[in-house]
């Protein structure tokens, strides 16, 4: 079955996942994002591309940061942004997800930005819209369950390309809670699609998915081995709720084995960059000395994230 995120002409009409998204579509999103980065440097930080369009932020799960960056991106495109605090409204009164969507379409929504704790919810919405002749309405997945967080994956790709220029000779190491990380899943798909020869995942067995090798990555349980000679280190956030379960002994123990310190970073290439999707836990997965060093590109990631989201929204809105 054809992916619902591409239309008949192969243009991006929803962004649901980086899995299976063709390399030329990923490259064209990154290329489109480039001129959007410079809009922040203007007197008027706005372009009129989405003037008169309505972007609905549907966050069934909280994420102030992601919602804010989508809101800024939409506003810089001159769209009207409506934030819906779904948890507190209709679903708690028993309305189904698709009924909520139909109601918002009746309010002339043009783009839905969807964050949901259930994997596949944005996909379900996109299929529903496509099946009911509402192809002029578009969906962007802003993180669904453990599945995907495609705009985060794209901004990571943008950041790596910005600093390293190309993917064909890179080694990228992703460290931490890959099991629960939709960020890691999106990034792995994107990196392999763009031809990155070596993608490594580093973490304790309890935090790596079974058969993770099937995604085309090399697995390391020893952080030092996994960092050796890499060009980019992507640290994942260790969610504190994981600590409460049986998956990990303690934050201190975790930091000792999988926290990024200057001493461990020295094993990577001398010009290796350090990335983190945020919010980061200093002293848990990353040492302050690394987070504040000039090797860290964590704040540029945030800036690039707005440009990447502008690129995605402007591309799907015209498909």
């Amino acid at each position, binding site marked *: 079955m054809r992916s619902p995120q591409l239309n008949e002409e192969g*243009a991006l009409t929803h962004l649901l996942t980086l899995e299976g998204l063709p390399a030329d579509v990923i490259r*064209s999103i990154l*290329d*489109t994002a*480039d*001129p959007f*980065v*410079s*809009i922040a440097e*203007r*007197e*008027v930080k*706005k*372009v*009129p*591309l989405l003037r008169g369009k309505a972007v609905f932020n549907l966050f069934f799960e909280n994420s102030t940061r992601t919602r804010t960056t989508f809101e800024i991106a939409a506003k810089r495109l001159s769209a009207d942004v409506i934030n819906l605090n779904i948890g507190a409204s209709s679903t708690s009164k028993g309305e189904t997800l698709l009924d909520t969507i139909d109601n918002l379409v009746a309010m002339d929504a043009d783009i839905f930005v969807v964050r949901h704790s259930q994997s596949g919810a944005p996909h379900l919405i996109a299929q529903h819209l496509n099946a009911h002749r509402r192809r002029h309405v578009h969906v962007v997945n802003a993180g669904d369950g453990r599945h995907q967080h495609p705009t985060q994956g794209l901004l990571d790709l943008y950041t790596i390309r910005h600093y390293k220029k190309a993917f064909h000779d890179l080694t990228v190491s992703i460290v931490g809670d890959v099991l629960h990380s939709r960020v890691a899943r999106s990034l792995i798909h994107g990196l392999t699609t763009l031809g990155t020869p070596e993608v490594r995942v580093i973490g304790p067995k309890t935090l790596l998915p079974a058969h993770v090798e099937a995604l085309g990555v090399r697995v390391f349980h020893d952080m030092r081995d996994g960092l050796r000679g890499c060009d980019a280190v992507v640290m994942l956030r260790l969610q504190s709720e994981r600590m409460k379960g049986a998956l990990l002994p303690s934050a201190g123990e975790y930091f000792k084995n999988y926290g990024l310190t200057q001493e461990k970073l020295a094993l990577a290439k001398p010009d290796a960059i350090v990335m983190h999707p945020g919010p980061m836990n200093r002293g848990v997965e990353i040492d302050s000395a690394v987070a504040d060093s000039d090797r860290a590109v964590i704040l540029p990631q945030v800036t690039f994230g707005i440009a990447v989201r502008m690129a995605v929204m*402007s*591309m799907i*809105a*015209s*498909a």
Partner: protein
Amino acid sequence: MTPPQVPDAEATLVALAERMRGAVAYDAAFVGIYSGGAWLAERLPALVPGDHPVGFIDVSFYRDDYSTTGLKGGSRRTSLPFDVDGATIVLVDDVLFTGRSVRAAINELFDFGRPARIELAVLIDRGGRELPIEPTYCGARLTVARDLSIVLSRDGDRLALGVEGQ
């Protein structure tokens, strides 16, 4: 039907510079509209006396046909390395047709500041305007059928004009 004759691009550029010489402000900035206009804006300071900063503008984000044609690939960064507030700016484009690109470029310039004056220099004016926009300086006028495009190309440093069917 024989293809319409197009003038020599290099000779037309010299003719355009001739019209600008003495008429254009000494410190006017030359801002080329990508991509043809950008090539011309790079060449003009050597041909027009004065101290002319050069900038480039990509109007993709300001076009009025975005909702039907979308973003065409290859948008570039607009780069205006001078203070737009109070500046005299000469927009430079290769072919003036409907006037819609120029409208988009003027809108974009105002998002960078408030220029004192904006003028328009074009290599070719082919008529067919859909907006009340006229060039201040023009290299040559040319009439071709509406469904044909006049295209400026660059090989090394040499510019050439051609006509393409649609």
